């Protein structure tokens, strides 16, 4: 697969910006292709249960986060981070196996879709409660400090809506007090589910929150891959150099429903006409062509490659067995000898 072959995980930052841009674009393309396929499998029915939450339009900011991180770093993605996950090093199979509920996926059917992760590899499996992953990243960074691991960074994704949670506040303040190398990437896509910004917060710009925590804030056009790479890249670099937590606020528009069940009819039409309503993938493609960083033939080749990777991953995942309740280990404790009712088949505590 492209992931292991052409694009080694956590490649050291290319000195050549166009090279990074191309790599990032390919992850975006792969993410978009993956999600379109997932959506179509979902719509065809029967194969995917539970919600399907897509990152369409958010690939630029997401990939920029994933690509800026390297081995030993931490990443806590949220629901719109397919691109960032791939760039960080999550395998495509982790995605498709999880969506298709395969026993062999990292969550073994116990959790699904966007909830996958591998904590030992620095990729945190989100719980649903918004804001709850940030302090977990903080703790991992505190552990690095205790252990003398230097120059690692932890990045966490968040939406505009999640900035209203108490967890967001406590954890960003905690990171500031501990001066942790946390990069908090807030993607303001104008809506939290159906709720527009003006019912969510009242400050002029979410980046204004940085000053209240005594940390550095950065704004970026979330539809512009080049800007995302530069701004996230430098935020990550600052964090890595010991400059403490960095808040990055990207502006864009959610180009899909909250989930695939949602037609997003409530999105104000004028937003779609604004620059923030652009599709970051299309913008990046145009940029590639305009700068002659890639020609259309090359891009077509990449597209074909993405499709083939995705087809393979889906086909493989469809063949994988589902979890079997009879052989499932119904034990929530690692210390098995302390678990209750393991043999009694649920008939008592």
């Amino acid at each position, binding site marked *: 697969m492209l992931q292991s072959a052409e694009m080694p995980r956590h490649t050291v930052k290319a000195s050549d910006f166009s090279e990074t841009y191309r790599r990032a674009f390919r992850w975006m393309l792969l993410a978009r292709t993956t999600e379109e396929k997932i959506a179509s499998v979902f719509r065809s029915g029967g194969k995917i249960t*539970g919600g399907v939450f897509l990152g369409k339009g958010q690939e630029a900011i997401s990939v920029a986060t994933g690509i800026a991180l390297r081995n030993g770093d931490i990443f806590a993605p949220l629901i719109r981070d397919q691109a960032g996950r791939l760039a960080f090093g999550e395998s495509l199979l982790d995605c498709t196996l999880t969506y298709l509920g395969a026993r062999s996926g990292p969550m073994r059917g116990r959790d699904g879709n966007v909830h996958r992760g591998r904590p030992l590899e620095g990729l945190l499996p989100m719980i649903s409660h918004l804001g709850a992953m940030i302090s977990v990243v903080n703790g991992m960074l505190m552990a690095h400090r205790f252990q003398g691991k230097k120059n690692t960074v932890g990045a966490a994704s968040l939406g505009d809506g999640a900035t209203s949670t108490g967890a967001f506040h406590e954890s960003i303040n905690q990171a500031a007090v501990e001066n942790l190398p946390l990069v908090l990437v807030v993607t303001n896509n104008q809506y939290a589910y159906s709720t527009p910004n003006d019912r969510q917060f009242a400050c002029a710009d979410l980046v204004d929150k940085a000053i209240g925590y005594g940390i550095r804030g950065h704004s970026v056009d979330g539809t512009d891959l080049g800007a995302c790479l530069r701004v996230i890249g430098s935020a990550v670099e600052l964090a890595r150099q010991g400059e403490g937590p960095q808040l990055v606020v990207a502006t864009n528009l959610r180009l899909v429903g909250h989930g695939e069940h949602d037609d997003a009819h409530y999105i104000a039409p004028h937003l779609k006409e604004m620059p923030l309503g652009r599709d970051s993938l299309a913008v990046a493609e145009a940029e590639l062509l305009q700068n002659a960083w890639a020609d259309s033939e090359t891009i077509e080749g990449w597209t074909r490659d993405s499709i083939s990777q995705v087809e393979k991953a889906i086909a493989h995942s469809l063949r994988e067995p589902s979890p079997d309740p009879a052989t499932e280990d119904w034990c929530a404790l690692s210390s098995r000898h302390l678990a209750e009712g393991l043999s009694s088949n649920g008939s008592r505590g």
Partner: protein
Amino acid sequence: MITYLEAIREAQRQALENDPRVYIYGQDIGAFGGAFKATKNLAQSFPGRVLDSPISEDAMVGSAIGASLQGMRPIVEMQFADFSTVGFNQIVNQAATMFWRTGVPCPITIRLPSGGTPGSGPFHSQNLEALYAHYPGLILMTPATVEDAYSMLLEAVALDDPVIFCEHKYLYFHLKAESLPSEALPVGRARIARAGRDATVVTYSAMVHEALSAAEELSTQGWEIEVIDLRSIKPLDTDTVLASVARTGRILAVGEAWPWGGVTAEVLARVATDGFNLLDAPPMRLNSKDTPVPFHPNLWGTHRPTAQTIVSALRDLLRL
């Protein structure tokens, strides 16, 4: 035909219409009508009284408490019961203690879309009634029928105390009734969902229907199982339960929640203390497994009790 979900919507419409003190507050419940559409069209019909909140469960509940002290009757919708853990403190420490501390009632209703459905996973499937019932000062309603969803929600809003209203998502669309009732049992009274003779199943919410299917199946084999729908788990109608056990001599308590503690433990503890001599056999209980609620339908179907596992538990109980 009207669904369980429509009954909840209808009750809210009634409450808004009949009582100017009522308003509804929650995420995406305004123009959008809520994640499950429980408030569809209500914002349009009652301008300014169905308000979208920020994603701030603590402040949502806190503000409802404040408004109730000033004479309002707020209904708070949690998008999922599971997210009430972030508003937990306001519910259990502020709302639940208010009347006892100050003598001033705190009439708020918190709607918790509860319980498992296939594919919902560990964080969109929880049954949290036992948590809230443990705290003094709260009323816990767990309607199992379309009729109760409607009439109990109206009563929740009318009551002067904080009510945790556990509505079951699995019933939202599946469960239908011919029409809405004009009368109902009072809150605190359980319902005999099916009369029987040989054993009593005590349960609530979605599990009532699993128990009824189980009873149906066993009746083809000559066993008559009484099924009690608790309706509210706090107060818990011990009298109705004991009267049934007096008739059948056997009891199985069934709950969809986790096995340690919870409704089944409370029911059996009451029956054992107050109805010991009514029992012809050891009481039994059936809960979910002691793990988070699994995402995959295969696992989910085994994690919670079902008609089949209830049948098999009842066979054991009848054999004892």
